[in-house]
């Protein structure tokens, strides 16, 4: 039996999707996601027919589809298995497990098997590094805690084409282990309670409380939430829009996963409070494609809230307070976590970050004033509505108020979720999670900072070590060069390709790191890495490129020996091998004798073509 029930044909699928979304050109990304769920991939004729139906051109639609890593313009296996390629999961053996699976299935990575049954590849972190190695099946099912036994069973299920709903349910069990809860993770407020509190306060007073709280955005940049709302509220426009950024793509981060599952009411209350303050009627949750498995639960919750009068028309019985939320799925693009790229994606475009200003608060979704906040930020807003700004400002540090959730993974006894007030020392978190012989901690993911042992007394705070929530622990067994190399591969994989320094620079970095890993590096290569760091930091179009070298720079500065032991020479070594360059000529001429080589050793004899 198939992974999917016998699928619909192209015309039926297109008809279904158009009936669902209408001929809305801005729904393109959602339509492509839906079509692929039905058809497995996106054939060329389908793109042309879809383009015609929504008034766009085939080239435009192909350009959009080709932007997203999870949309396929070529056939893929009926079972599409994507290993989460996070450095933490690599250290837990994900590459070896993937090689084992490929061997068992007789499939090459990245290419569908001859019979079209299966393809195996990697993708960026899918937000399960606390229970990895993990993988994603057909973009809708996750398998956690992979080991050799599970891989062997999985290969058998695929070979027998067992439908996904008959796979062992416990494989997809995702545990949100909260080791330390504070305000956000420990709350048990009833749905709508925070929203009611905001309504009682009134819109102006609610905004004033937010100002008093000095809440800063939890997505990483730390922009003051009240200022963002204020700017949006003052921006003229026929309507205002509220967007929740649930595109938690920073490798090693999974706190939004837990909030979406455990505190979704606090999140939606927070969004509704924003709508109340801004006078917005429309809201979106931009849910990353990797979290597709959370979608049904989230939609059910929104439906419950509509039934309870907490969403939709006349919310909490208040005339004129109409606000509803649609969930938009991402399709595998880290850059869409950048708010203007996210809005482009919401509008059915390639997720290329916009030129700013204007900022989304002024001109966002369809040019309308739009507030975009992180999941954790909206949850925090709910608590501020309930308990007031002074209360929130009393937690944490002067410039970083409130609490922060950390996604702890890597070399520790108790990976999972830890919520602390801002100002908490790194050492405290390490102690609580049972980390021993810690060599380094990557705080805030690949775009964050790599801290070494002598910095463990520093504090989590915007004024010291800021973070979007990832906390990756590396003990003394780990090779920090390999960690940095994994991050370089990540950024090269996720660069949107729009601007020169990021598109080419991240690829140059990836290749340099591979050269060093192959033992062909020299001091000169390290100089080039530093040069690229400066260049990307100064000249890229958006923050993805600007932060792409952060971890690399930190590790090169703090763990220099990990790099230097890779060098062939401390001076210069050429990146190419003269003899290896001749291999094509040897293959073409069918020669492999001594005279066809520069170096003495003759390469393993190869039959002439």
């Amino acid at each position, binding site marked *: 039996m198939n992974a999917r029930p016998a699928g619909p044909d192209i015309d039926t699928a297109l008809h279904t999707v158009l009936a669902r979304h209408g001929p809305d050109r801005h729904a393109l990304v959602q339509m492509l996601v839906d079509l692929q769920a039905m058809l497995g991939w996106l054939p060329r004729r389908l793109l042309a027919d879809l383009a015609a139906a929504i008034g766009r051109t085939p*080239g435009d639609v192909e350009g959009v589809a*080709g932007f997203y890593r999870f949309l396929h313009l070529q056939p893929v296996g009926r079972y599409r298995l994507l290993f989460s390629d996070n450095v933490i999961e690599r250290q837990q053996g994900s590459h070896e497990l993937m090689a084992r699976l490929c061997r068992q299935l007789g499939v090459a990575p990245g290419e569908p098997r001859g019979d079209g049954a299966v393809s195996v590849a990697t993708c960026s972190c899918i937000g399960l590094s606390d229970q990895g190695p993990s993988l994603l099946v057909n973009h809708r099912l996750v398998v956690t805690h992979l080991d050799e036994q599970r891989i062997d069973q999985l290969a058998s299920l695929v070979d027998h084409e067992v439908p996904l709903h008959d796979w062992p349910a416990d494989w997809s069990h995702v545990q949100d282990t909260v080791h330390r809860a504070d305000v956000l993770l420990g709350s048990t407020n009833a749905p709508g309670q925070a929203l009611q509190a905001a309504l009682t306060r009134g819109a102006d007073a609610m905004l004033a409380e937010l100002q008093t709280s000095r809440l800063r955005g939890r997505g990483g940049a730390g922009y003051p939430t009240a200022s963002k709302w204020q700017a949006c509220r003052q921006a003229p426009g026929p309507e205002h829009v509220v967007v929740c950024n649930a595109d938690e793509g920073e490798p090693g981060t999974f706190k939004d996963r837990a909030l979406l599952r455990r505190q979704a009411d606090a999140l939606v209350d927070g969004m509704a409070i924003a709508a109340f303050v801004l006078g917005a009627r429309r809201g979106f949750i931009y849910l990353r494609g990797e979290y597709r498995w959370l979608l049904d639960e989230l939609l059910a919750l929104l439906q419950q809230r509509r039934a309870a009068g907490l969403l939709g028309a006349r919310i909490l019985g208040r005339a004129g307070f109409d606000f509803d939320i649609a969930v938009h799925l991402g399709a595998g693009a880290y850059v869409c976590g950048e708010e203007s790229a996210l809005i482009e994606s919401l509008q059915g475009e390639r997720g290329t970050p916009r030129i700013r200003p204007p900022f989304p608060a002024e001109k966002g979704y369809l040019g309308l004033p739009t507030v975009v906040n992180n999941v954790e930020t909206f949850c925090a807003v709910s608590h501020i509505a309930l308990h007031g700004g002074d209360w929130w400002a009393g937690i944490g540090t002067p410039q970083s108020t409130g609490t922060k959730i950390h996604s702890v993974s890597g070399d520790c006894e108790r990976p999972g979720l830890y919520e602390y007030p801002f100002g908490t020392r790194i050492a405290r978190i390490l102690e609580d999670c049972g980390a021993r012989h810690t060599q380094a901690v990557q705080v805030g993911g690949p775009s964050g900072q790599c801290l070494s042992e002598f910095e463990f007394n520093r504090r989590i705070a915007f004024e010291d070590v800021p973070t979007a929530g990832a906390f990756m622990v590396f003990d003394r067994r780990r090779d920090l060069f390999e960690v940095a190399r994994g991050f370089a591969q990540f950024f090269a994989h996720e*660069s949107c390709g*729009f601007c*020169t320094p990021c598109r080419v620079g991240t690829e140059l970095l990836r290749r340099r790191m591979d050269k060093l890993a192959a033992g062909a590096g020299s001091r000169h290569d390290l100089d080039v890495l530093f040069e690229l760091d400066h260049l990307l930091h100064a*000249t890229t179009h958006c923050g993805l490129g600007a932060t792409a070298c952060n971890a690399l720079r930190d590790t090169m500065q703090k763990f220099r020996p990990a790099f230097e032991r890779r060098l062939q020479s401390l001076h210069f070594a050429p990146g190419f091998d003269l003899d290896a360059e001749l291999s094509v000529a040897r293959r073409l001429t069918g020669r492999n004798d001594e005279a066809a080589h520069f170096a003495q050793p003759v390469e393993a004899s190869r039959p002439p073509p």
Partner: protein
Amino acid sequence: MNRPHFLLGGDELPFTPGETVLEAATRAGRYIPHLCWHEGFAPHGSCRVCTVKVGTRTMAACTTAASEGLEVTLHDEALDAQRRSLLQMLFVEGNHFCPSCEQSGRCKLQATAYAAGIEGPHFEEFYPDRPIDASHADLLLEFNRCILCGLCARASEQYDGKAVFALGGHGIASHLVVNSASGRLVDSDIHPDDLAANICPVGVILKKRRGFDVPIGQRLYDRLPISSAPEDEAP
């Protein structure tokens, strides 16, 4: 009332509110290196060759609004080095063999690189495999030289009203998409006189049977450095 002014390399230049630094400088007859920007089109901000210092911040001149008293630095050691690196990146990611290129002498990338003092690729070349599209009777698409400035796509959509080109793919595999049923140029509605067919700053979109109509050595940038060549004669 006096027009407002900003400072470019210490010189006072007037601007009209709403203009970017690059627009205002160009209008005042000053040259800021650029590839993806073209008079009459909204800024794209992708090539980053127009990177300047505004105060202490590094910004793209094409996307930065001019404002009263703004201090813009075009040349210093770091900026010149950065500009060279950006240009070198564009060279190594594609296949650029100037001596055999039909556009040599009228290629903005080549001319800008000469003006920036580039003597070699510096980075390792990627040598990508990019098949050409020779399907059209009058036009040739030489993708090896594409720098993804998007000018052809913008010109086609906003000026020609056709949308013959679009940007596709992502990351280092980003590429130009031809909007036609087959994906080939012959099946598109492009015409050789379209602005889209004439705006390419490098040598991707070429007219067939016109090769070397002007001998090398007598072309625009053979005669003048790009900094003093008139913008309207450029491709």
